[in-house]
């Protein structure tokens, strides 16, 4: 076990975040390490003296801490089976196994570093020129190149977790929880706004967290005020990934519920305040990637947050007060600061040398200084991505050597504050932020009032004007625009690339030399140079590299930074796992009221759209045979059902169906077919008249929603004057079909109030009555199986009761449940077609054999003109019954019907008939082959050919319908 080296773990620091009372043990490349709760993985390792945490992508150069933040390019590690973990941000947890990525055989002795020897052949864009020929060798090249990719490993055995999502609708969303963000949040909340404060780090405070004692005091005060405001929701370890239309903002929450668990929050904010602070830039010089070269913010974090001594002997290049403060912190931590190069006075760093870490630094006057730590403080990058997404085009200030937002381009609902907007003391920044927060709240209240006024669910309109108006507002008057003070802009030296060649993009191993070479080859703009070299395309997405890249390209082209422009910021701001993006899959499922019975009796589930239906309970053929011989019951609840009421229902039915409906009597049922306006068969079903102005329409199961929309569309857009009310009642009824020679006997045992004799209740009629003690039940004398059958619709809550009652009452009659497969066999024997199976998107009604139903003498109906045209032109294809000559062969559905080398049709439905003990089919064929008795040739998927004969009618069993009319 590595104990914290006393020289590197400092005594308690005023602002430290580690909990020395809670040591945590983990492993690093198999070796045990101890840290503390609150340590990051890398801070815990750094405390033990570890300096190298990774190898670079291309050259496998040793890399260490640079920024000590989420955006540190040298600290990506594997934690267990989770690759690409940001080791300088991820908190230590007990028992984790941390390993370096893509190093072999070890991090310390990485054989892949041999790439450095081939460096001249691996310059930026090398893959456009090498590994091209011979072409056949590419697979070998690829396998070699993949071994050098600097990424972790994903185990196929990794458990899949369900990432949750959440929606949020804050009045004010504040991206950035530093002092400006906190001040803005407090101010907005006091103005009555609901505030969502999003901070990337593990705690609020921004740079105050690793600042001076005065900074810590300000932090404590601000944090206390934030906590005291109930209207502020704080999210830490969370990042605003991108801003979209209407101020929709995607937020990644990396931890919630106390665990590492990514969650996506979809926020829609009335106003957004962007307060992300600034990101410190590296300096480009030879050796700038050596372990031991750090940014000033990195050393201040290590010392003040994690109580880790960054080194023993330091050289500092400073160009601003933050660099000066780092010098003070280093000295306080006992680091020997041997030289401070002040860039404001002409100081500079020429190069750093060493192999696995900094050993010496050459400064501007040529002096070579031995050291193990080089600290740079050369300036800042403004992370403007959220502003860019809002339409801003930041402007470069040569005076300050960084970009600033262009407030004139920002939309009304986006404001900006903090270091990204200007400089100044903490007091000036928080005063600016407070004004911005108040103004954001004012604009949000105005937006809220407009939304509430437009929303029918809201309270009375007068209440809307007082919504979200806080105690500072003048009652009854819209608040006046808040004055936002100006922030000063401090001058800063323009330090980007030094006198020697160094790395610009640490993640992609792209150097200043690579960028200059790209420019020389003609890639003269920032975007072109980026794409050719991949600079800014690494895991940091440009945060540390963009401005330096632009500066090097500008220098190489002779243009200014402003003239060169930047690359385009695109969301997500930081990586997000695909699991978090996808979230939990919501897949609605629909069940019949009888599903518990199906489950208990071994039903094999059939997924039919969103429905779970019983496909079979055992042998489907036996189920079908039982229906023919005794009686069977099938759950047909998914059948679409529409309740139609009103005096104009017959008009509607005449319009939608191809047949006539004006004279349907009460108690009668009629089969109907609907066509779309192109004459293609849309749906079929039966409609019964239950009362004077009351009808019940059935549709196919899969067509239920479509037909409802179809009906409403006609009523609302074409005939709003018709008095018809349509109510979907598909699942308001539990529906079951009782079919077979014993069906009437079974129904009689459970039904009251209905005369079931054939004379009183003939085929294609409907009655209402009491079934199994349930009143208001609907009883149809219809069928799909070709047998005597009754379709029962009972209020759905009683469905299971009725089903169980029927099963019990019919035990001696041989009652048995049958599933969808048996029904398909039975209906095929009877010759009933299924819309969407025996018809397709081109099958007009005449081609489906519906000549008998189509009444072209009606005034009008949907599809009439097209059907009239079809009839006049001649029907080119027809649906026919088919029986293979070899009765044992059951051709697969969709098997082609061929005539020589041409396709003349296809099998649409095909089964072995248990009743006839032979194969039977329905098929679409060219009209010339549709004559009964015609022999056609069927090509099986195997390529074999069989002969089949066209039958006189679609029905293979009981074509005259005597059984169903019994």
């Amino acid at each position, binding site marked *: 076990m590595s104990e914290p080296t006393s020289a590197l773990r400092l005594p308690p620091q005023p602002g430290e975040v580690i909990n020395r009372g809670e040591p945590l043990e983990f492993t690093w490349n198999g070796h045990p390490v101890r840290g503390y709760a609150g340590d990051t993985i890398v801070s815990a390792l750094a405390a033990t003296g570890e300096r190298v945490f990774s190898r670079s992508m291309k050259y496998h150069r040793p890399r260490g801490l640079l920024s000590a933040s989420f955006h540190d390019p040298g600290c990506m590690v594997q934690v267990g089976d989770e690759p690409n973990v940001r080791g300088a941000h991820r908190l230590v947890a007990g028992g984790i196994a941390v390993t370096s990525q893509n190093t072999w055989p070890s991090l310390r002795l990485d054989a892949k570093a041999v790439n450095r020897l081939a460096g001249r052949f691996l310059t930026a864009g090398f893959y456009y020129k090498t590994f091209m020929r011979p072409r056949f060798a590419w697979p070998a090249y690829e396998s070699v190149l993949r071994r050098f990719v600097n990424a972790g490993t994903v185990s196929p055995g990794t458990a899949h977790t369900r990432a949750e999502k959440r929606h949020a609708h804050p009045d004010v969303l504040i991206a950035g929880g530093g002092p400006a963000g906190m001040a803005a949040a407090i101010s907005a909340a006091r103005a009555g706004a*609901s505030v969502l404060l999003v901070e990337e780090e593990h705690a609020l405070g921004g740079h105050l967290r690793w600042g001076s004692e005065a900074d810590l005091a300000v932090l404590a005060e601000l944090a206390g005020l934030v906590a005291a405001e109930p209207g502020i929701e704080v999210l830490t370890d969370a990042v605003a990934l991108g801003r979209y239309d209407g101020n929709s903002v995607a937020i990644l929450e990396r931890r919630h519920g106390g665990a590492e668990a990514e969650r996506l929050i979809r926020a829609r904010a009335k106003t957004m305040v962007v307060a992300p602070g600034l990101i410190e830039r590296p300096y480009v010089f030879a050796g700038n990637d050596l372990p031991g070269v750090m940014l000033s913010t990195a050393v201040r974090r290590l010392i003040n947050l994690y109580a880790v001594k960054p080194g023993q002997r330091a050289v500092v290049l400073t160009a601003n007060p933050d660099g000066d403060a780092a010098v003070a912190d280093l000295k306080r931590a006992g680091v020997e600061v041997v030289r401070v190069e002040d860039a404001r006075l002409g100081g500079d760093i020429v190069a750093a040398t060493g192999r696995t870490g900094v050993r010496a630094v050459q400064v501007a006057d040529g002096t070579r200084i031995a050291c193990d730590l080089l600290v740079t403080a050369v300036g800042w990058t403004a992370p403007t991505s959220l502003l860019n997404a809002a339409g801003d085009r930041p402007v470069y200030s040569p005076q300050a050597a960084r970009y600033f937002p262009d407030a004139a381009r920002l939309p009304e609902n986006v404001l900006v504050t903090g270091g990204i907007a200007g400089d100044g003391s903490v007091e000036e920044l928080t005063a600016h932020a407070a004004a911005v927060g108040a103004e954001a709240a004012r604009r949000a209240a105005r937006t809220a009032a407009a939304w509430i006024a437009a929303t029918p669910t809201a309270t009375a309109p007068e209440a809307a004007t007082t919504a979200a108006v806080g105690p500072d507002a003048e009652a009854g008057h819209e608040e006046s625009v808040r004055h936002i003070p100006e922030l000063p802009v401090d001058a800063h030296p323009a330090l980007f690339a030094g006198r020697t060649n160094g790395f610009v993009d640490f993640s992609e191993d792209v150097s200043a030399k690579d960028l200059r070479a790209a420019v020389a080859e003609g890639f003269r703009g920032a975007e072109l140079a980026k794409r050719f070299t991949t600079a800014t395309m690494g895991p940091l997405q440009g945060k540390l590299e963009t401005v330096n890249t632009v500066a090097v390209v500008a220098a190489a082209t002779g243009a200014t930074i402003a003239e060169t422009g930047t690359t385009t910021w695109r969301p997500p701001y930081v990586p997000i796992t695909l699991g978090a993006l996808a979230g939990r899959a919501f897949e609605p499922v629909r069940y019949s009221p009888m599903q518990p019975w199906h489950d208990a009796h071994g039903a094999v589930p059939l997924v039919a759209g969103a429905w779970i239906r019983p496909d079979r309970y055992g042998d489907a053929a036996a189920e079908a045979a039982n229906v023919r011989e005794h009686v069977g019951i099938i759950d047909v609840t998914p059948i679409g059902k529409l309740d139609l009421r009103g005096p104009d229902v017959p008009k509607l039915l005449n319009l939608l169906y191809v047949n006539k409906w004006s004279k349907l009597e009460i108690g009668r049922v009629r089969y109907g077919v609907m066509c779309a306006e192109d004459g293609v068969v849309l749906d079929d079903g039966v409609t019964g008249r239950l009362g004077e102005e009351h009808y019940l329409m059935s549709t196919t199961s899969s067509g239920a929603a479509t037909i409802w929309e179809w009906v409403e569309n006609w009523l609302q857009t074409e005939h709003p004057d018709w008095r018809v009310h349509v109510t*979907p009642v598909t699942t308001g009824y539990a529906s079951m079909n009782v079919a077979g020679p014993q069906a009437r006997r079974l129904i009689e045992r459970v039904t009251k109030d209905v005369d079931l004799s054939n004379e009183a209740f003939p085929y294609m009629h409907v009655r209402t009555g009491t079934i199994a003690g349930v009143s208001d039940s609907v009883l149809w004398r219809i069928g799909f199986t070709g047998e005597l059958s009754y379709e029962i619709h009972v*209020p759905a809550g009683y469905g299971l009761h009725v089903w169980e009652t029927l099963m019990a009452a019919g035990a001696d009659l041989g009652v048995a449940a049958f599933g969808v497969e048996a029904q398909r066999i039975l209906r095929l024997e009877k010759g009933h077609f299924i819309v969407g199976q025996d018809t397709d998107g081109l099958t007009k009604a005449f081609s489906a054999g519906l000549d008998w139903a189509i009444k072209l003498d009606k005034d009008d109906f949907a599809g009439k003109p097209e059907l009239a045209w079809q009839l006049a032109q001649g029907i080119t294809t027809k649906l026919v019954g088919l029986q293979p000559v070899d009765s044992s062969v059951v051709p697969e559905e969709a098997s082609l019907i061929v005539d020589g080398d041409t396709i003349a049709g296809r099998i649409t439905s095909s089964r072995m008939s248990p009743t006839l003990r032979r194969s039977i089919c329905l098929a679409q064929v060219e009209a010339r082959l549709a004559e009964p008795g015609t022999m056609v040739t069927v090509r099986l998927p195997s390529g074999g050919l069989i002969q089949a004969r066209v039958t006189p009618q679609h029905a293979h069993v009981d074509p005259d319908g005597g059984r169903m009319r019994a």
Partner: protein
Amino acid sequence: MPEPVARSPVAPAPPVVVKAGWEVSGRRADATGASALTLTDCTPLTKVQLRAPVDGEFAASLGVPFGRAARDPDGTLVVGSGPGEWLLLAAPGQAGGLEPMLEEAADQAPGESVTWVDLTHGRALFRLYGSPAARVLAKVCGIDWSDGITPDGAAFRASVAALATDVIRDDVGGAPSYLLHCERSSGRYLFDALLAAGAEFAIEIDGFDPPGI
């Protein structure tokens, strides 16, 4: 022949009892008060859908516009669920009892096309109660649940867990409460989705007690 008992699409959490002719859960949640979070299957409630001209006499007599819900003197919750469409929620078994009132009201609006359909069995309906309720719903629905946009008495249709669901904010005792109903066959799915979303807030199932509205 056994007496018919009606069942919800949601299998009741034990203990299972029969109330008002419905098989329901007799469970009592352990946590109480507004900070508790409970989910109750209220499917047994009577649900009658009305259709009438959006700006006619019948609509005026109801007095509840689209997007709002309010109780009438008899305690029936009248919901303006759509333009020219209302849903009446009443205690179990009241569909027949509502008819005379509806017929009388229709008679007062001659010439208007007024119809009603008993959807008691066609809709699954649940009550989500407690101060965390909006946070639960924020995990399964993108609607703004703030008091300004969806105050007590708001009624609307939205996608909840990818399912078309009608939502009514119906606060109880000053605590936030939402009635959610969907077509019956998806009831089990919606109930489970709400339970899963509420697990983070220690949601409990609470049994149904008539009148329940």
